[in-house]
């Protein structure tokens, strides 16, 4: 069984009386690329900040590399690469000084890989951070996070501010990192095609709860969208569990069901549809169905 690199146990976070995280249980095994999805305000950044020890949970605990995230030692932090949302760096510093500081603090530093990234991204060492464009700041942040040879790479919306070409380069780099032994990546993103391309496990946060937590392929198998055509008006209510979404237009019903299996299929046929076809779903479709404000459902 793979070692668990990141674990959340009943994480609850309240902000000024508002529940942002509501009992999150999560396990990320070693070597996994975990894509964390959710609409704005779903709690992705809060969860990541708790994992990085920048925020304290109201209840529950988070373990990173086996240690409580609130009490990580310097050596344990050195095994984690982190890119915060908005590419937080120190604007008044020169790039060269920032790099020198990060290099000096890191227990491991892959100079060759870092040099490769700097030349790929064409990062100027003599400029101040505030003089860099958003894209360059993102690239610098990624390069600094990756140069420490992290066992765990945590990226909070890392491709924000990158153009298409830079995003593609980043994804290739992420794949390059994961191909090294035992590396794990946990990342959140709004660009679902990126997640679909590199993640092998996804979690979808809906209103502070982890509505989905399973391998990407299993998710695609388990969530099924069906177009049902009836001879007359479709039934208003179906006695079926795990309905994510149900829409009726004339004699046609569009039905999205989680945990799809042959029992549900057999049960659905008892309603006598004259036609039943499967509508192909991308991750984006599944995400939209699962995070629909009308019918959030656990998968």
């Amino acid at each position: 069984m793979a070692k668990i690199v990141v674990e959340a146990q009943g994480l609850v976070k309240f902000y000024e009386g508002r529940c942002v995280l509501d009992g999150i249980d999560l396990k990320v095994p070693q070597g996994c690329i975990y894509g964390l999805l959710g609409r704005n305000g779903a709690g992705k950044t809060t969860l990541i900040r708790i994992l990085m020890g920048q925020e304290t949970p109201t209840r529950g605990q988070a373990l990173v590399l086996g240690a409580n995230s609130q009490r990580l030692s310097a050596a344990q932090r050195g095994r984690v690469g982190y890119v915060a949302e908005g590419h937080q760096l120190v604007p008044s510093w020169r790039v060269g000084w920032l790099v020198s500081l990060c290099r000096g603090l890191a227990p491991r530093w892959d100079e060759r890989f870092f040099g490769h990234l700097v030349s790929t991204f064409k990062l100027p060492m003599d400029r101040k951070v505030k003089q860099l464009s958003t894209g360059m700041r993102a690239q610098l942040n990624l390069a600094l996070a990756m140069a420490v040879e992290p066992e765990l790479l945590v990226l909070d919306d890392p491709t924000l501010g990158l153009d298409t070409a830079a995003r593609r380069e980043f994804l290739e780099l992420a794949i390059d990192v994961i191909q090294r032994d035992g590396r794990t990546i946990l990342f959140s993103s709004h660009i679902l095609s990126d997640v679909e391309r590199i993640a092998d496990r996804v979690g979808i946060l809906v209103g502070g709860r982890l509505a989905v937590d399973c391998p990407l392929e299993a998710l695609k198998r388990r969530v099924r969208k069906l177009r049902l055509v009836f001879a007359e008006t479709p039934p208003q209510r179906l006695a079926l569990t795990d309905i994510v979404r149900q829409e009726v237009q004339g004699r046609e019903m569009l039905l999205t069901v989680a945990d799809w299996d042959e029992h549900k299929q057999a049960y659905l046929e008892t309603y006598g549809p004259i036609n039943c076809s499967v509508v192909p779903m991308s991750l984006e479709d599944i995400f939209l169905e699962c995070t629909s404000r009308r019918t959030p459902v656990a998968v």
Partner: protein
Amino acid sequence: MRKLVLMELDRVGLVALLLLTAVGLLMAFAAVTGFYYPWHDSSRPPVGSPEELVVVLLVATVVVPLISTVLGWLQTDYDRRWNLTAYVSTRATTRGRMLAARLIVGGLIIVASIALMVLAVAAMFHAFPRLLPVDATILVAIFVTMLAAALPAYAAGLVMGWSQIGRLRILVLLGLLLVILLAVLMMGSRPRAWITLAVLAVAMIGWLHHRYVHQPL
């Protein structure tokens, strides 16, 4: 830790320079005063006196803590303004170490400034042996009080910079700090006053440590 200390030095180097320059100017004034004192020629009118040296040092006892407050305030205010800890604490270090590096740098700058004064006074004693009528124990007491007053003032500056409080409250806090310092100085340059100031400094640094380590970033 070395990198963190260098990072702190990089940020407060200018203030350190200011502090050392202020101290240097004060000592230069004291030295010139001492130089013009008619030690050998009693017919020349006196321009300065050994007592002036004591006055200069007493002024320094107020100036050094005030600059120490500014030093501490700049260290943490810069950090809060630019999210320094939020970034650096995600690297291979801890907030405790970052605070320790900050205190080491601040403490060293203050001690170096006072040590500079001690050296200058020692040099003056060497150049003008007749200054010796000034009781050396008074000078020692002044230097110890200066250091004892500078440390809580520095800690207060750190606390003020880290707390998100308005300018008016900062002024009120500064006033309060001045009152405390004056009250302690009125107790005299005695061990009781030094202990009171040291306890004040430790209490403020303890509170700051708690806030700094546990505050969401």
